[in-house]
Each structure stands twice: as C-alpha cells, then as structure tokens.
C-alpha cells in the first residue's frame, strides 16, 4: 500500500472513530435510561433509536473494513430487531450482555479494531454467541414480568435476521432527519483548539493595545505640560537679544502646539481603532467560546456504567441519577472536572453507600442513591451537586486523623465547630497507614478535588449528616475568563500573582522585619504574620546567600505582597511590583501536568511568557522553606553536609532520571545497575539511604532489601522500593522483607519520593 492510501485510510479511520464513539455514547446512554424502566412509549422510542444507532455503526464499520466491530454489531442489531418486535423482553441479564458488548466495542475502537490475544478473541466469540442466543430466547425464558401486557407470539427463526423491509424502514426514518442534519457540520474538537488559541492571542494583542494607548496618552499629557511650562517660562535677557529670544520662544511654542494637535488627532483615531478592535476581539472570542461549549452529557455519559461496575464489584446496590445534562460548559472546564467528579463518585461508592444488609439495619432501602445534578446559577455559573444517602462523614474520625497527621494541633481541634471540622477533609496529608505507599494513607484525594476546582475559579463545599448522607456542592464559572493579576519581579524572574489572593501590596522599611523563633515576621493589620522571600520559596536562590543580600539591601525600602489562601496569610518579599493587569491563564502542556507553586502561564503583550503562581502551594512551600532553614541551625549541623544515597535501577533512563532528581534536591548520589551491584557498593561505602527498583536482573529489590536487613553492617539503612508493580501482594512482600517505603512509579511523582526520603533520613 502506498503512503497516500495509507494516509487516506488513517484519516477515514479517524473519522470512523469519531462517528463510532458517538453511536456508542448514545447506545450506552439509551441502555442506562432503559434500565430505569421508562414508560412503555419511551422505551419503544429508545429501542427504535438504539436499533438505528447500532445499524449505522455496523454499516460504518463495514465501510472501513473493521470486521471485528462489524461482527459484534451484527448480532447486537438482530437482538434489537427482536426487542423492537417484542419477540424478547428486557431482563437484567440482557442488560449485562448489552453493556458488555458496548464495552467490547469501545475497547475495539481504541485499538483500531485489532484483537491482540486469543483470550480477547474468545471474549468476542462469547459475546457474539450470547447476543445471538439472547435474540433467540423466547419470552418465557426471560424475566418477562416487567412487561406483563406482552402478547406471547410464537417465535420463528427468521425474526432474528433483519429482513430487507426492516432495513428499508430504518433508512426511511434516517432520511426524515436529514434536512435538520444538513445544517450541522461535524468538526473534530482538535481543529477548534487552534481557533481558540488564536482568539486568545488576539486578546493579548488587545491588552497590549490598551497599554500602548495609555502610554500615548501619557506622552500627550506631558507635551501639554511642556507647553504650559513654556508659556510661563521667561528669563531676563538683554534688550539686544530680546528679539531673538522672543522669536525662539514663539517658535518653540508653535512646535509644541503642533505636536500637541498631532498627538491629539493620533490619540483620537487610535482610540477609535481601539474601540473597534476591542469590540471585534470580544465578539470573536465570545463566538469561539460559544463553539467550545459542550453539553455536560459529553462529560458524564461514561459515569453510569462506571458506577455500575464499581457497585457490582463491591456488592452494593446503587441507583445513579444524573440531571441537567443539557447544560453547556466550556470544554476545557469539563475536561478538568472529570477527575474530581470521578473521585467524588468513587468516594461515595466506597465510603458513603453501605452494603445492602448494613443499609437495611439502618432502616434504609437496600439500594443506595447517588444523585449528580447540574444546575445553572445565573448566566455564567454552574452548580454541581453530588449527593448520596449513605453513611455520612464521621466528624470525630476526621478530627482524629487531622490531629494525628499534624494538620491541626490537638488544642486547636477543640475549638473547631462542626463545619470547620468537616472542611478539614479537604486538607491533605491524613495518614492512617504505618507504611507509606502512594495509594493509601496520604489522604490527598479530596485536597486534589478542591485544588482542581479552585484552579477553575470555583468553590467546593460539603454538607453531611451522620447516617443520612453527604452532598458535595461545586460552584463554577461556565467559561474560562481572564482575571486580574499582579506582575512581580524577583531576581531575573517575573511572575503573576492572582489578584484574588493578594490582600495588599506594600512598601516598608526592612527594619520592620522581626525575627521570631528564627522565622521572619512582619506586622500587618495589627497582627504578626510570617514573612518569606518569594525567590527563596521558589528555590531560585540558595537561602544561605540571601543573608548577605539582605544586609546589603537593609537600608532600602522593601516590597511586600501579602497573600492569602483559605485562612492562611503570609507576606512575601519581592524585588518589585510592576503592574496589575488582565491575564489569561494557559496550562503548561501535557508534559507538565502539575508543577509545584505554578498553576499555569500567561503571555504578556510583549510576547514574554510569565508563570502564574499558585498561592495555596506558595504558602505551603513557604512553611517548609522556613523549616528547612531553621532545622539545621537547631540541630547544629552544617547544611553543606548532604546525605549520600545509593540508587539501584537497571534501566539507564530511570537511573539517570532518579540521579538527576536526587542531585537537584541536594543529595550525593551513587548508582548501581542491579541488586548485586548495589549490595557490593553498599558494603564498600557508607550510604544514608538506598533507593531501589524492584524488578532487576541478578538480584531484585526484594532480595536486596532482605539481604540488607540481614547484614549486620547495613541493617539500619532505610530502603525505599520504587516499582512498577502495583499489586497488594507485592506491597506486602516489600514490607515483609523490611522496606521502609514502597512507591509505585505510575508517573514520576518526585515530591512523593523526596518527601519520603526527607522523612526517613
């Protein structure tokens, strides 16, 4: 096959994929609705609809030669034909088969219709047979109770096959839809993204246009000022020179007047241009944003089947209702909402809804209910409510866990009211497990939810009542808007701080900084608040160098930005506050999914890219930066002496990466290529900690750990196992052989690793 054909086939397959995804979405949505036993008329309508969908999917699959997909669609279609004729009726078993079939089709679609293993092939065969069998079943075999008015017509074999006339009927129905469809163009969303980016660039241009105009106005004001000064200006000149002087004076005055006029004209016409440009840009951006608004249904359509799967797995019965799916929200917001919502739903399923027998004991219906509601709040906000009728949140447990993890002190805990206690669940770091793993015991889940929502300029709150249920309320804007931010400078770097987090910008004498217990503080609003240097917190300068810099600058005034997040208020010292301006935050790309202290970046009118800081992180970082500075002083250890770490890893890349990360964090790093090598090196040199991969040739991480624990000289060295293995058995094995921590390297989460190392050394 030549390249052009290949390209064409690729494109056409892509088109097919988009189309097929849509068919499958409608199919699974239809099934979900059918499962709730709608009135008979609606049920018939849904079946008709789904029959058409699966028929089109089959046709499309055939046209791009996707035989596997076609082969599953075929009995699927026959089954629906039988349903339509009421030869068979819907039963729970049938739903299971149908959902499974949709699952398989979805998977096939993602692998381009390629079946990799014989096991998969067998699954396909099974589902095809099940579909076929189900279509042939007579109503008396199935649970026909749902449709008691069903007339028990005798079965014939031919009904399973879709007859020619049936097909014609289908295409006839489809045609009646055509006139409406002709006005709709199908464009992949990926083609729309550049359009949005362009209009956002326009917005940047608009912002810099505004700035230029202001500069021009400034020049104009100055020229007027010169003119006024000149008219007042007079010097004593000898009579002989007076004529020349007057002439010159007049000439200068005329020049300035002309310049003033020209500037006025220029300013006037630019103002007109700016007005037009602003209007066009705003309209354009508005239109583009409108295009990118997608209905909520595109986000939640996969949720019901997920809820179904999880509740089956946990032997729970759950009714899951979604309302308000037709509301439209910016695609990017929807994308960012997916994880938080999934997390909240999983939480509800996991901790909220109890098992049927537990529920019955509490006089509740055995099956729990989870409601997901989307409601419009005004024209530009949306409220999302996820509620369940489960156990509710046990405030006492939350409080205990929070005190244990050090989020709050035991004394402070006593003074909290109920709402304050509940809001603690959004704070990170509640750990119940004695061994650190990245799956359990870190208590990060809900803090991530609130963080994501905050980044979208939204708010999340929770209401709960013990044994009655829990509801999470998320309030969000429906579009991504620009916000105001303050441009600050520290060293060579520029950053944007969102104005919502800025309490005040102030200049003060450096003498105002007071040191309390080794921490810098400053009084603000009659309160003493901690102060940190922005550059230090971001790790731009070594804390050590700063002291000399401080003293050299001590006579100067210093610039301080007081920032807030939640209840925390921290003052940050910056080199300069340049400007407050409108900014549009963009994400940092797929490689940088989460960078500490930074929520995104914005492009200045000049084209410079400036990072936008994430204040909740900054405040947390400022606290740990303070501790880092003060701890070595308290312990009387020189900060230069860094810990020595041995990295055992067989993959060259992973080894280089680990080395890089650890060295960046200030450790001395040696490497070993496998367990045997690591053990030898560990015995030769003294190390403070060993980081080891699990899966290595010659001696794996478990064996290495066991060997270290049994060695008299080495038994005390902390061992961190880093692994791709994720099973519980492996984790337990890791603990059994004596590892101090066990981290699964799903993505390379460095903070996780560094934090654990810090705790262990």
């Amino acid at each position, binding site marked *: 096959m030549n390249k052009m054909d290949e390209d064409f086939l690729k494109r056409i397959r892509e088109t097919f994929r988009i189309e097929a995804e849509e068919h499958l979405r409608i199919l699974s949505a239809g099934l979900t609705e059918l499962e709730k036993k709608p009135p008979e008329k609606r049920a018939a309508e849904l079946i008709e609809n789904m029959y058409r969908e699966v028929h089109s999917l089959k046709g499309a699959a055939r046209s791009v030669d996707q035989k596997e997909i076609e082969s599953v669609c075929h009995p699927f279609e026959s089954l629906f034909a039988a349903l339509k004729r009421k030869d068979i009726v819907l039963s729970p078993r049938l739903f299971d088969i149908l959902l499974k079939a949709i699952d398989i089709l979805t998977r096939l679609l993602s692998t381009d219709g390629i079946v990799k293993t014989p096991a998969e092939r067998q699954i396909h065969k099974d589902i095809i047979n099940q579909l076929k069998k189900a279509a042939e079943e007579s109503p008396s075999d199935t649970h026909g109770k749902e449709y008691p008015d069903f007339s028990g017509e005798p079965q014939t074999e031919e009904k399973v096959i879709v007859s020619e006339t049936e097909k014609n009927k289908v295409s006839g129905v489809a045609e009646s839809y055509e006139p409406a469809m002709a006005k709709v163009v199908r464009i992949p969303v990926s083609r729309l993204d550049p359009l949005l980016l362009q209009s956002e660039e326009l917005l940047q241009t608009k912002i810099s246009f505004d700035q230029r105009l202001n500069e021009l106005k400034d020049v104009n004001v100055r020229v007027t000022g010169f003119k006024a000064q000149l008219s007042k200006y007079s010097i004593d000149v000898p009579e002989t020179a007076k004529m020349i002087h007057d002439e010159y004076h007049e000439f200068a005055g005329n020049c300035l007047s002309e310049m003033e006029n020209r500037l006025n004209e220029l300013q006037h016409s630019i103002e007109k241009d700016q007005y037009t440009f602003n209007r066009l840009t705003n309209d354009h951006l508005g239109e583009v944003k409108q295009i990118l608004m997608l209905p909520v249904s595109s986000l939640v359509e996969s949720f019901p089947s997920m809820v179904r799967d999880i509740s089956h797995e946990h032997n729970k019965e759950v009714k899951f209702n979604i309302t308000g799916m037709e509301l439209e929200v910016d695609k990017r917001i929807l994308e960012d909402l997916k994880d938080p919502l999934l997390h909240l739903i999983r939480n509800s399923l996991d901790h909220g809804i109890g098992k049927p027998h537990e529920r019955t004991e509490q006089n509740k219906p055995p099956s729990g209910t989870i409601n997901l509601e989307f409601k419009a709040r005004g024209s530009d906000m949306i409220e999302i409510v996820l509620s369940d009728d489960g156990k509710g949140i046990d405030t006492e447990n939350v409080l205990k866990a929070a005190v244990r993890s050090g989020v709050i002190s035991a004394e402070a805990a006593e003074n909290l009211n109920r709402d304050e206690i509940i809001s603690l669940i959004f704070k990170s770091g509640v750990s119940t497990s004695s061994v650190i793993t990245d799956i359990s015991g870190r208590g990060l889940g809900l803090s991530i939810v609130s963080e994501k929502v905050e980044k979208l300029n939204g708010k999340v709150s929770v209401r709960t009542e013990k044994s009655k249920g829990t509801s999470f309320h998320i309030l969000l804007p429906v579009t991504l808007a620009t916000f105001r931010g303050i441009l600050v400078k520290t060293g060579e770097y520029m950053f944007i701080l969102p104005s919502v987090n800025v309490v005040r910008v102030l200049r003060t004498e450096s003498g105002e900084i007071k040191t309390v217990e080794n921490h810098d503080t400053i009084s603000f609003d009659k309160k003493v608040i901690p102060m940190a240097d922005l550059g230090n917190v971001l790790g731009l300068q070594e804390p050590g160098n700063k002291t000399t810099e401080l003293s050299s600058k001590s006579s100067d005034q210093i610039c301080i930005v007081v920032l807030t997040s939640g209840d925390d208020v921290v003052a940050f010292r910056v080199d300069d506050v340049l400007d407050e301006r409108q900014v549009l935050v963009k994400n940092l*790309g*797929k*490689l940088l999914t989460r960078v500490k202290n930074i929520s995104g970046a914005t492009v200045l009118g000049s084209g410079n890219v400036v*990072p936008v800081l994430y204040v909740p992180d900054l405040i947390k970082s400022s606290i740990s930066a303070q501790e880092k500075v003060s701890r070595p002083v308290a312990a009387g250890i020189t900060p230069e002496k860094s810990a020595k770490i041995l990295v055992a890893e067989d993959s*060259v890349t992973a080894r280089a990466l680990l080395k890089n990360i650890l060295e960046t964090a200030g450790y001395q790093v040696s490497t070993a290529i496998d367990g045997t090598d690591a053990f030898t090196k560990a015995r030769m040199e003294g190390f403070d900690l060993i980081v080891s991969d699990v899966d290595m040739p010659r001696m794996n991480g478990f064996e290495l750990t066991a060997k270290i624990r049994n060695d008299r000289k080495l038994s005390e060295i902390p061992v961190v196992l880093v692994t791709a293995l994720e099973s519980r058995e492996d984790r337990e094995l890791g603990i059994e052989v004596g590892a101090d921590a066990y981290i699964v390297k799903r993505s390379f989460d460095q903070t996780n690793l560094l934090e654990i190392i810090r705790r262990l050394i």
Partner: protein
Amino acid sequence: MKKEIIAVLKNRAREMAREPEEQTSSATGDFLIFALAGEIYGIDVAFIREVYPLRDFTQLPGVPSFILGIINVRGQILPVVDLKKFFNLPEKGLGELNKVIILHNPAMEFGILADNITGMQPVPFDAIRTSPVSVTGIGSDYLKGIAPGNVIILDGEKILNDKKIIIHEEVT
C-alpha cells in the same frame, strides 16, 4: 568560473536523471536530522509537529533541569525538554541556531531542544543498526539505533510515551 558552474550543473543533472536505486529495503522513513552537543541525531518525522525557532523561553522554578522551560507557540504554551541534560551530554550554551523540534502524538506534546537542524533524510528502517549505543553513553531507552553516517536515531515513540518524564508534583 563559468565552466565550473556548467560542469557542476551538468553533474547535478546527471545525478538527478539517474534511475533511483533499486529499493531492496522494505520501507523507508523520513527523518529529521539535527545536531546535539556535536553529535548527529535523527528522528522520524511522523512524530514531529513542527520545528520552531527558539527565540525566547521562560524558565520554571522547581522543575528538574531537563525541562529547559516553556515557550509560546502561537498562543499555546509548550514545555521544552533538553535531551542533553537528560543524557548528561556536555553543555554548549544556547546559540542563535537553537531550534525546538515539537514532538507530538495524540496523548503527548512537547518540544526538544536541537542545536541545529541539518535537514531531512530518508532512512530505510532496516538500515538502522540497533547495536553499539553504549559507545555514545546515552540512555539506550530512547534510542532506536544508528543509521549510516553515524546518525543516532531517536525513538520518538518511546520518548513521547515515557510516563516517567511527566512532571506531576504536589506540595505537601
């Protein structure tokens, strides 16, 4: 002088008129050839979205050193990865010829820094030898092999799909 030019042109015409050599190899890919720390690298154009001149970039605090920074490509913010840092190659400093090769697949997108782009070159896939990569001292994970002319062929697929270089850091 003129004669020389004519001779050159004639030569060129002959070269171009020559029948293309018998394609014994199964398939040939187009590779973008670029220089990095004095070595010649190639990467399959199938993974390349575009090549962008590196005019300006913004460093990010608190990221590993293999992330050079972020750039603005027509309104889109993209991270730039410095393979030199990643492979511990010597630093040459950013010159005027620095280019960013934007790698792309449906799930990932970022730029890699190149010292200089030499051009495009067809390379038959079976001419890529998968052997002595250790000679260059580079992480063999990202390398496909060496093509004729000592061109080190990078494995675009592996680089793009490496979950380990995704930065996802929480502050705790």
